[in-house]
């Protein structure tokens, strides 16, 4: 009785269909538990959360230094965008570090990467939290002020990719875009 107190000794072990379902459900939970460590060793997409404490101003200074040293041109946005009309286009050395800053309401700078090379992308935010969402691939990571979030990334497809901000960061949030080109 769901509504009345229980008086008889109410404990008894599961049996029949209930026992079958319990067994199957526990087994399935084991499968799901093991998939994550399995993918960690055998899969290629793992968010390791590697990060270092950094002051936003220092991170911006490192980004500016990176832009100065590796700039290869200018990205002129063909679609009207008040916050990313023009961005420096920067190509980090293959296997090297790249810096990407999120701020209201722009991802800075635009990056040019090579297919099949691996990069250490340092991701951080200067003002509020922002969401790094790479489209149309649909890979999503969090950018947090005070944290240098390192993504060790290997582009395996060529083309033009748009970084969309998917963490609310004020009124211009929906217009906060950036670019990654892979050649």
């Amino acid at each position, binding site marked *: 009785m*769901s509504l009345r107190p229980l008086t008889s000794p109410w404990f008894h072990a599961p049996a029949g*269909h*209930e026992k079958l379902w319990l067994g199957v*459900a526990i087994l399935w939970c084991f499968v799901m538990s093991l998939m994550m460590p399995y993918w960690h060793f055998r899969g290629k997409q793992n*968010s390791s959360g590697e990060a270092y404490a950094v002051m936003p101003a220092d991170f911006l200074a490192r980004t500016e230094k990176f832009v100065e040293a590796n700039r290869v041109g200018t990205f002129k946005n063909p679609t009207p965008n008040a916050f990313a009309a023009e961005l420096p286009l920067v190509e980090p050395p293959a296997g090297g570090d790249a810096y990407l800053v999120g701020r209201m309401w722009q991802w800075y700078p635009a990056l040019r990467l090579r297919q099949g090379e691996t990069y250490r992308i340092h991701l951080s935010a200067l003002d*509020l939290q922002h969401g790094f969402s790479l489209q*149309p691939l649909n890979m*999503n990571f969090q950018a*947090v002020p005070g944290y240098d979030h390192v993504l060790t990334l290997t582009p395996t497809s060529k083309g033009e990719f748009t970084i969309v901000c998917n963490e609310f960061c004020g*009124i211009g949030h929906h217009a906060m875009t950036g670019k990654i080109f892979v050649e």
Partner: protein
Amino acid sequence: MTSVSATLPVGPHSLAAPATPKRVCATTGLGVCLDAQRFIKLHAVVGVVFLLLGGIAALLLALTRWQTVHLLPADWFYRVLTFHGINMLIFWILFFEVAILYFACTTPLNARLFSRKVAWVGFALMGVGAVMVDWVILAGKADVMMTSYLPLLAHPAFYLGIILVAVGTLVGVFNFFATLYVAKRDRAYEGSMPIVTFGALAAAIIAVVTLLHGAIVMIPTFAYSMGWIGQPDPIWYRIIWWGLGHQSQQVNVCAMVAVWYLLSHVIVGARPVNEAVCRTAFALYILFINIASAHHLLVDPAVGSAWKIWNTSYAMYLAVLASMVHGFTVPAGVEIAMREKGYTRGLFGWVVALPWRNPALSGTVLSVIIFGFLGGITGVTLGTQQINIIAHNTLRIPGHFHVTVVGGTTLAFMALAYYVIPLFFQRDFIWRGLARLQPWLFGLGIVMLSFGMSFAGSMGVSRRSWDIDAQGVYGSAAHLWLGVLGLGGVLAFVGLLAFVLLCVGTLLFGEKNHGRPMADWGTPPALAGAQAGSLADNHSATKGTIVLTLVFLACFAVYYFANWKALADVWPVR
């Protein structure tokens, strides 16, 4: 036991004590504590007011994300989104849950509410806090979303209001615990508490842990917004905030499951197949859901893979197991009750014979199916460490929690109202035809909304974004799914409005049913030759349920591995 209590007098907190303000329910024969009844009514009514406010906001949001309509300007979209999340996820649900707690600690235990004064204090704190928060949001001083992630900052009154609501709820929960204690002490009942009260107890314990997390995160944030201390660390804030944010949803799950047990018992006479298993499942929620809130931080910096995998594997899946157990035992209880009434034809004859014209039944069945099949499967998949990479902060996330919290919890609470109003307000429902339609309208709307969100989200459309055209990357398919989201939102709003009109109309114009049973919504009659309790020891009488749950598991496995496949198609990342 019986002989002992017969000789000892019962204490003052038993309803059986002389001069206790009480009445006997004409329909169920249960004693109703009049103090508790007043607060059940009060909290339920205020909860429904917040549901309506949140629902109006929902309609505006659905009509804005539907790109063809795109109703609100950007600033009002984000404002209304903040308002919607907080009114729905916090105010509507917390007020209704306190009503459930007051019910669960009195009526089923034949007990009197511990204290009227404490109940007033809790209610006043919650009410003042909620009005404060809504006021600040609508005044445009807290466009910070439900999560209010630092360093995004709101007006101090926003945090203070939330703290007041949390403290008020804690006071209500204290009243619940105190009532349980005095009911036991005063021998209001004998034996173990019924499963409905046990489920409410599990919800209350998780609520305490949740609200403590809320205090740990909101008090420093309030102090920071006042300029008294430096800015709390944003990652610290995220970790502790989700101790509040995720577990509060587990309070809902517990309350919802308790309502499933209650309604399946009231409607078809179902009882848990195995009390020991059901209670263990509730205990698993209490023990393991805490750490599972880690699944909101799976693509965050500074929390490592080992931490993420550990916290989302062993702990989360033990809580998931609990839901899978309830997902079996609730329908199994119904199946046994129906078979004992003589509906034995084939695997699913008992399903066909259910009283489908009873809105409480259709609401409960839809709640179980929508929560389990859509909410459960998507939630566990999204909470997988690596799969989260392709889902974090996309529309897939609200696509998931709208089917759990809205299609699951809210629909279950709506179903409950079809019995609560006649029993506690003693009025019969008006417009019974509309009532029969209401759960279907609402359920279908929410399912469409969720499908729209989930598919748009898997195409990369962000949540909490006013516009997708400014980004220039989303094609016609994404627009189509946002249209489905919009239509589903409109339909669900119509269902919600129907519910509110039915409740308010019944309170004002419903026929009084004092002293006579409430008009019956529909209960399946026992057929000739049926024998109650005849299947109590037949552990293979749940053929239909085991088939349904195995189908569920197959869907789960397909969806889960399809997501691993989708993940394998994106760039390698560490």
